[in-house]
């Protein structure tokens, strides 16, 4: 994954202050994970620029890229970096783009509230737990002192960014346990784990944060001691390897040609941190947004 490479050598103009009234459309689609952030941004932006028509779709990261490649959207949201196939197609279609980071999502591993024996796990244990070995797993298979009861697995659908990320860093592309229960809807997973004494599951941090009283979170030991997912640990990068960045990709052409898109993108960068916190994600360190802003200014030249 790389950022846009549209280095036309125009220099000069600084930030336009968006006080003048803008019109036109800003069309966005992409990740359903990122959607709440973009919804919040769009909501605020419409308050500032009521004549700009901002629409945000939620067709998933892949679906978003589909439209982005076809040139149907100005920005596309992604819960993972662009894939090689996608970037090849983007090149083919001549779509130049720039990647911006918006926030972190910490993937939380949770168990049932009544589970008394787990409070932390190592990454290796996680892997042992989740990777398929052809047999039915009991807790005691992981640690002998744990009960001899069958584990119930809950995971986001295989086509989600969260699964994708988990697959990459924990499963390392090996198949997940076959009897895992998958669902597209994280709320549904919350209910699953909540209602099942021997359940373990994972999903976005926000879903844990909102249901703290119903679930028990598992701290993850990545060699540096067990870390519980919290705002701070995710933001600081301590909670590793399960915190992942969320992105938006903006079309360079749209920024250059449409004043409102440029203005909106700037607004996104300036407000993403605060607003992502509000909807349940974790903001990036300030430097990240500065970098984004610089990239944008490059484009606007």
């Amino acid at each position, binding site marked *: 994954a790389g950022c846009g490479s549209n280095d036309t050598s125009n220099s000069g103009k600084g930030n336009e202050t968006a006080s003048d009234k803008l019109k036109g459309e800003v069309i966005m689609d992409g990740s359903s994970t990122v959607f709440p952030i973009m919804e919040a941004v769009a909501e605020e932006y419409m308050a500032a620029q009521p004549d700009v028509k901002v629409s945000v779709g939620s067709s998933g990261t892949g679906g978003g890229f589909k439209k982005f490649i076809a040139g149907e959207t100005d920005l596309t949201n992604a819960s993972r970096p662009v894939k090689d196939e996608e970037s090849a197609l983007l090149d083919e279609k001549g779509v130049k783009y720039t990647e911006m980071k918006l926030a972190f999502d910490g993937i939380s591993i949770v168990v049932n509230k009544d589970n008394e024996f787990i409070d932390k796990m190592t990454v290796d244990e996680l892997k042992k737990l989740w990777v398929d070995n052809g047999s039915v797993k009991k807790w005691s298979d992981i640690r002998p002192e744990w009960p001899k009861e069958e584990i119930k697995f809950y995971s986001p659908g295989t086509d989600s960014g969260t699964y994708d990320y988990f697959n990459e860093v924990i499963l390392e592309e090996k198949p997940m346990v076959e009897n895992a229960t998958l669902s597209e809807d994280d709320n549904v997973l919350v*209910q699953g784990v909540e209602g099942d004494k021997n359940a373990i599951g994972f999903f976005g941090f926000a879903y844990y944060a909102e249901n703290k009283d119903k679930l028990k979170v598992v701290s993850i030991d990545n060699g540096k001691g067990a870390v519980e997912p919290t705002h701070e640990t995710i933001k600081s990068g301590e909670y590793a390897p399960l915190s992942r960045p969320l992105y938006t990709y903006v079309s360079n052409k749209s920024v250059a040609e449409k004043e409102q898109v440029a203005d909106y993108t700037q607004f996104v960068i300036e407000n993403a941190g605060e607003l992502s916190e509000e909807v349940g994600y974790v903001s990036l360190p300030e430097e990240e947004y500065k970098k984004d802003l610089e990239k944008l200014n490059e484009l606007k030249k």
Partner: protein
Amino acid sequence: MLEPKQTDTYSVQQLILEKKSKKRWNIEKLIPKLLFLTAVISVLITIGIVLTLIFETFIFFEKVSIVEFLTGHKWLPFASTPSFGVMPLVVGTLKVTVIAAIVAVPIGLATAIFLSEYASEKTRRIIKPILEVLAGIPTIVYGFFALTFVTPVLRDIFPSLDMFNAISPGIVVGIMIMPMIASLSEDALVSVPKSIREGAYALGATKLETTIKVVLPAAMSGIVASIVLALSRAIGETMIVSVAGGSTPSMSMDVTNSIQTMTAYIVQVSTGDAGYGTTIYYSIYAVGMTLFVFTLIMNLLAQFISRKFREEY
């Protein structure tokens, strides 16, 4: 009494003759052609669907062998070594459909019989539209009903039931299609001529005997048609199974486990993460095609059955 040649300065026939010069005949010739065109649109839609599906399906079959697709027993499109055997999705779809049928057919038919044979005209007029509301409730609403009401209730009764299973969405899909069976079958029952019923009553038959042995067989073709239509709806139902069925493709015949249906898979990929142009992307068209062929076969079967059952009167 009739005094046409009195004060009138006109004769209707005369007036008609004058107007006749305006040619109507063109419209008469044009209209059927226009209407024919609208009728042909339905055919165009089908062609459109088939073409849409077929192109992308072909690309899919360049990547995955059609034999594997049709006979494989594993549907793991996202695995590092993906496998695309559609059977688990088909099994998931069938499980839901069969459960839905078990719920909807008896209840729907019993309702139809109650409304057409036992209920008063007034009751009928009140209940039928209420049931039709049931058929029109957005499926997404049903989905959460299944997940947050039916599943917990079932789990209270059978604690071994998984959070996601085939039973709960199956029952709820059944509830959704039940009014369709009830309403259409009721129409079929009502249209059985009264004289045939009278024939049975006059022999001392009770209402039940009349209904089961005379009216029901006479209306059978309409009833079969309604059931098939409803089951096609069940096969094609998406949101309920997506929400309450989980998304685990499985070959097992166990209905207490999580499943995935063909439709749920399409939605999963449509809203998901799959890259454009990937095998997964094309797989939804292949699954869509399978679904289409499925409903096609169902309908042809229905036509055949209903022709067979038809008792002329």
